[in-house]
Structures are given as structure tokens and as C-alpha cells.
């Protein structure tokens, strides 16, 4: 209860949460609202928004409903964001935890490996991976996960290193618990809050990455996503601004919501920090 209180005292976080829930609801209800799918050519092309009943946001270059595209695109963006973040956590958390807990050669090895990924610019690596693997929803998610785990590993390593010298860990050692048990049941649970905060921001980054890839034409051609909509509208931006504007707004709102939530979670987990700031 106190956690929720602390979270809800941050007004931005609450707004973010409401926005995100709305986006999730829209994504879940997409097949109900637009059962025909987003690709159906339903009206004449280049209908201007707010001029035709039933097509509030107009139609695109082939006469497809922009609203249907946005609604179905929300599914892809959220799915890619969540799944790739989960995958990144699955790689980053164990690696960082082992490196931080055991130190020495393990740490050296794990961190050099992490640096290897960190030295390559995220987006460039993602482009290369998707191009090699052929763009499908799966390969895009995987590529985003592969470029996003290094910061997680770094964060977890730092947390574990500071936690492992605490008294309760020493006590666990004295009590004769195995290293693995100490790491999993004593150390990691105490490192969860920064990981959650980071994860919420990573979802936002992943959505942006997916949109950027689709914008460049490296999206899955069979799946409607916000980035694809903007990329396809780029060539007509001078004559049909709404085709790139509305998907852009959708990305903005979703990413903003996730960032606000991340901020709120951070405040809720670290009440001391917050007092110091305000």
C-alpha cells in the first residue's frame, strides 16, 4: 500500500500509467474494433483526416484506414517492447549477477564480453542483425534484445558488488549457504527495484528501436507497425502529412507514458532520493 501511495503521489507517473493502460486496452481490443485487419484497402487513397465518417484519421497511399493501422500497430509495438526487454533481462541479469558476485576472472571475462557489444553502436548492430536474419517479428525482437542487454548486465553487476559486502550476506555465508543460494535468494531480490525501473525504460527504447527499423524498411513486411507507417509515409510527407504525424504521436505517447512510469517507480522504490531532490 505504501508503495502505491508513493507511486501515486507522482502525478506524472499516474498519467503515464493511465496512458499505458489505454494503449494496452486498444492493442488487446484491436481485432474487435477492426476485425478486417489493418491492410484492407477500404476507401479511396489520401482521405484527409476528420473529413469522412468512419475514417477519423484519413486513409493512406493505398486507401487503408490509418486508425486501423494505429490500433493494430499498437499490438506490435507493445509486443516487441515487452518480449525483447524480457529477453534482454534474461541475458543481462544472470551475466551481471555472476560477474559481480564472483569477481576475478569471471568478472573480467563477462565484462570484456559485454564491452564487446557496447563498443558497437546499438542501432547499427540491430540493423546488421535484422538484415542478416531476414526481417521477421522474431528476428527483430531478438536483435533488439541482443543490443539492449549490456546496460542491464552492468547495472546488475554494480548492484551485486555493493550488496555482497553487506552484513546479511556475510551472515548467510557464515550460516553455510551455498554461493548460488546466496546470490539467488539473498542478493538478487535486493537488486530488483533498479532492474524494474530500468526495464520500464527499456521497453520504451525497444519500441523506438522497432519503429526505427521499420522506418528504414527493415520491419516485417507482413505486420503493420507504427514505424512502418511512418516509413511508408515518408515519401508523401509533403502532400499527406497525417500519414506520418499520427503514428508519430502514437509512438510519442507510448514512450512518454513508459518513461513517466519509470520515473514514478524510481521514486517509489527510493523514497530517500526523492526527498533529497524536492
Amino acid at each position, binding site marked *: 500500500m505504501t508503495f502505491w501511495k508513493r507511486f501515486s503521489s507522482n502525478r506524472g507517473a499516474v498519467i503515464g500509467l493511465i496512458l499505458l493502460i489505454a494503449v494496452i486496452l486498444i492493442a488487446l481490443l484491436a481485432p474487435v474494433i477492426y476485425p478486417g485487419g489493418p*491492410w484492407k484497402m477500404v476507401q479511396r487513397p489520401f482521405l484527409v483526416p476528420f473529413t469522412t465518417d468512419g475514417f477519423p484519421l484519413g486513409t493512406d497511399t*493505398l486507401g487503408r484506414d490509418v486508425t486501423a493501422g494505429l490500433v493494430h500497430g499498437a499490438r506490435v509495438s507493445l509486443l516487441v517492447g515487452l518480449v525483447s526487454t524480457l529477453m534482454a533481462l534474461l541475458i543481462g541479469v544472470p551475466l551481471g549477477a555472476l560477474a559481480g558476485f564472483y569477481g576475478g576472472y569471471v568478472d573480467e571475462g563477462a565484462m570484456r564480453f559485454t564491452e564487446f557489444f557496447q563498443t558497437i553502436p546499438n542501432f547499427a548492430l540491430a540493423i546488421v542483425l535484422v538484415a542478416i536474419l*531476414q526481417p521477421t517479428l522474431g528476428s527483430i525482437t531478438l536483435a533488439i534484445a541482443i543490443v539492449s542487454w549490456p546496460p542491464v548486465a552492468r547495472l546488475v553487476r554494480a548492484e551485486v558488488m555493493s550488496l555482497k559486502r553487506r552484513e546479511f550476506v556475510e551472515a548467510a555465508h557464515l550460516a553455510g549457504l551455498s554461493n548460488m543460494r546466496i546470490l539467488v535468494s539473498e542478493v538478487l531480490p535486493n537488486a530488483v527495484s533498479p532492474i524494474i525501473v530500468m526495464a520500464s525504460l527499456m521497453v520504451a527504447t525497444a519500441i523506438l528501436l522497432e519503429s526505427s527499423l521499420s522506418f528504414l524498411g*527493415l520491419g516485417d*513486411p507482413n505486420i503493420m507497425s507504427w514505424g512502418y507507417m511512418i516509413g511508408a509515409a*515518408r*515519401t508523401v510527407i509533403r502532400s499527406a502529412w497525417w500519414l506520418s504525424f499520427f503514428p508519430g504521436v502514437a509512438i510519442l505517447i507510448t514512450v512518454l507514458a513508459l518513461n513517466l512510469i519509470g520515473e514514478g517507480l524510481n521514486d517509489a522504490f527510493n523514497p530517500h532520493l526523492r526527498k533529497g531532490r524536492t
Partner: protein
Amino acid sequence: MKFLKTTTFLIAAGLAQPLIAQEAGGRLDIVVQPEPPSLMLGLVQNGPTQLVAGDIYESLLRYNTDLEPQPSLAKSWEVSEDGLTYTFQLQEGVTWHDGEPFTAEDVVFSADVFLRETHARLRSSLAYVDTIEAPDDTTVVFTLKTPFGPFINAFEVGTMPMIPKHLYEGTDFANNEMNATPIGTGPFKFESWEKGSFIHLVKNEDYYLENKPYLDEIYYRVIPDAASRAVAFETGEVDVLPGGSVENWDVPRLTEMDNTCSTSKGWEFFAPHAWMWLNNREGPTSDVRFRQAVMYAMDRDFVRDVVWNGFGTVATGPVSSKTNFYSDDVTIYDHDPDKARALLDEMGYDGEPVRILPLPYGETWQRWAEAVRQNLQEVGIEVEIDSTDVAGWNEKTAQWDYDMAFTYLYQYGDPALGTSRNYVEAQIEKGSPWNNVEGYRNPELDLKWEAAATSASAEERQELYNEIQKEIVDDVPVAWLLEIEFPTIHNCNVQDLVTTAIGVNDGLRDAWIKQ
């Protein structure tokens, strides 16, 4: 009174004609997209190379927009009654850009030695040629083994460019260092090439036609992004956008600008013909009813109007209506989803998914694939779009790893040059995206294709091609889509830009700028 007005107008127009004299001088900026790999037209014949090299090199003939031969390096020519001997009289006083005289020996060297080795498309026409001889400096005689009707179309600059014998004889053609500084007989000389930026050509002062060319210099500008090319034209930085250099969606906006002209002429010789390869070997596409269903399912008029902005003509069959020997006496496939569904039911289509491979040439082609996918899904065909880059597209079509693949190919004015290669069994061979990629086999038609190519009589050829078109359209070896038109957009001050069937590719010999 009205009559009077009309006549005065006519008289005025008649008088005005000679008054509009071509003005000499000026510089022209043209977009070339993408940057050509080389300007040596004897070695490389892709679009951008020919666009630039068409100013530098020439061939014996040019063709007007009705595909009738016109003089170029040959001032006159004669075809014998039996269709076996082609005699060309060359222009006099022609020199190469380095000052050496151009003679009949150069023609013999170019056709018989150089291009026979380097030019696959010409080589298949040269297979019909017995000897090429130069009885004197200005006469060339081609003697054929059998009549070959389309041979008169083989003297276009991209098909048979004249190569200087004195620079290439006895050398390794592909690695000759002169390839970097091409020498031709054309109206413009190669001056410099700033890679990634521009190619600079200057006027050939010693050109054999009096007063020509009119322009002083030409800059072919390399601008990699389509939107930037459109902007370059809007700001006046470039004067000419050759066909296909901006996205279709930009065309209406650009042509509506002041002092902007556009023409869809200049593509009659190439007559780019778009279709989808349908894999005749395996999967649902191996069933002729499925292929017919695809034809009925597609709304090709919609694509023409929406994706191509109304440019182009819906294709009726393998031969373009701009090419010689076209026939419209064939089954017409209108947009008829019910008929498509009926055909699918009849064959018992089980929902096996098919893949569509779009051409990776930009947004237009991507949208086109999406429209086709939607059309096919509406009649119950499961469709997925494969995404790929240019290398991947080449690889997949060359290795037959596709169900339906978009493509477009040139027709070169005659079905025997540009059409039969996609449908005869002898042309089934892995490794090329230009031959019978779909794997269509029809031995009976093969004989007719061959007979039509080697007949000396135009009437007989027409008759054979009519039969071929009628039959093949029912078989739907490929799904014909559109006769593509690429409008050439230019500043209206640029005059006589497109005068032949290959348009700006034929060089800017006649172009001039109204001051």
C-alpha cells in the same frame, strides 16, 4: 470568319516554325540514378550507364518513337529481299574523340570481335549472322545465315555501341585502362567523373553533324536519396529528371510546378513490361487454374491509378502494346474476385501459403506488393511478403526460390529480342533473373517462337505472334501486370530532349536550351 482565323493561325504557325531556331550554348544538369558502375557501354549496359554513355557512344541507327530506323552513324541502309544481307553506308568525316577517323573497320571490330565477346544480348542475335565485312571505308555488310526479322532493331546504341578498334584491338577488353576515359564518336566527350557527385561531359566540337550538339556541357548528378532528387529539381539545381528517378508520389507535385514539362515518350524501344514470375514448377502456382485465379483476383487498374498515378497501361499479355507484333486478340483478365474464387474451388486450393517477393526498388514496388497481397487474400489465398534487398532478390529469382516474384523487363522493340527469352524452354537455366525463370514449358509454342523469329515476311511473323499470344495468355505462365511508363520530367526551357524511342538514353544530340 472562324475559317479565316484558323487559316491565319496555320499560316502563322507555319511561318513561326523556322523562326524558333535552336539556340546553341548552355549547360544541362541531369540526375543519374543510381551512379553507373562504368561508362564503357560495350561492357556494361545497365540503365544508368546507358543514360550517360549514350552521349559518348553511338551506333549505326536510332529509332523514332514508332520504332522506325533513323540514320545515326549509318546515313543509309538496305535490306535485301530475302532478308539475308544488310548493307550500311556510313556517314563521312566521322572521327573518334581522340581524333582518329571512324571507319567501317571499327564497325566490324565492334560487332564481330568486341561485342561478340562481351555483350550477351547482342550475341544471341549475332548467332544468326554469318559474316560481317567492310568492302570499303564507308560500307559495312552483314550477311545472315537465316532471315532474322528483329535484326534491324539490333543497331540501337545500347545493343551495338561502336567501339574504337585502334584502342581495343588485341587488348584485354574488361581491363583496358581506356575504360575509365571512354572514347566514342558521340556528340559529347567524357571530361571528368567525381565519384559520388557528378559526371561531366563537354561538347564534341568536331561532331560530324553541322551545328550539333547545341549544349556546351552536361553534368550528370548523383543524388542518392529520392526526396533529395525531387528537391534538387524544385530548386532548379537539376534541369531533367529521367524516368524513374523520383518516387511516383512526387510526380504530380513536380509536374504541377511552373515551367515544368513531362513526357512519357522515349520508352517505346525498351517498353518496360512488369509481371510476377509464378513458379510453374511447384506449389499452388504450378496449377494453371491457380495462376488464372491470380489474374482475376488482381485489381490492376487500381494499382495503375493509385500506385503509378495513372501512368502506364494494364498489360494484356507477354508483348507490350508499344512493341512490334502486339496483338490484343487474347483473353482479357478483368478484376473478377468471384471468378477467381470459383477457379480456386475447382482446383481444390487447400490454403497452402504462397510467398510474394517484391522488387526492392523503393516504396512504389513495396506498395504494389501490398496491394496484390490484399487482392489475393480477398479471394482466399494465403499470402506472405518476403522482404529482401537487391542481392537477395537476384539470388532468389536466379535460384528459383520463390512462389511469386515481381519483375519488369525490357522488350527491345521485338518479341524475338525481348519477349521469347522469358517463355521458351531453351531459356530455362538457373543463375539469371532475365530468362525463363518461371519454368514454363510448351514445346509446341517453342517451335512457333522460333519460326516467328526467323521468318523473312512481316505478315507471317505477325500471324505467328498472334497465335502465340492467344495461346500463352490462357496458360498464364507469369502474371502480367503493367506496361510501365516512366515520365521524364524537365524544365520547359529544355527543348527536343526526347526525340527517339530510347529517349534521353540516346544522348542529347538534339537537345537545346531556350534562353
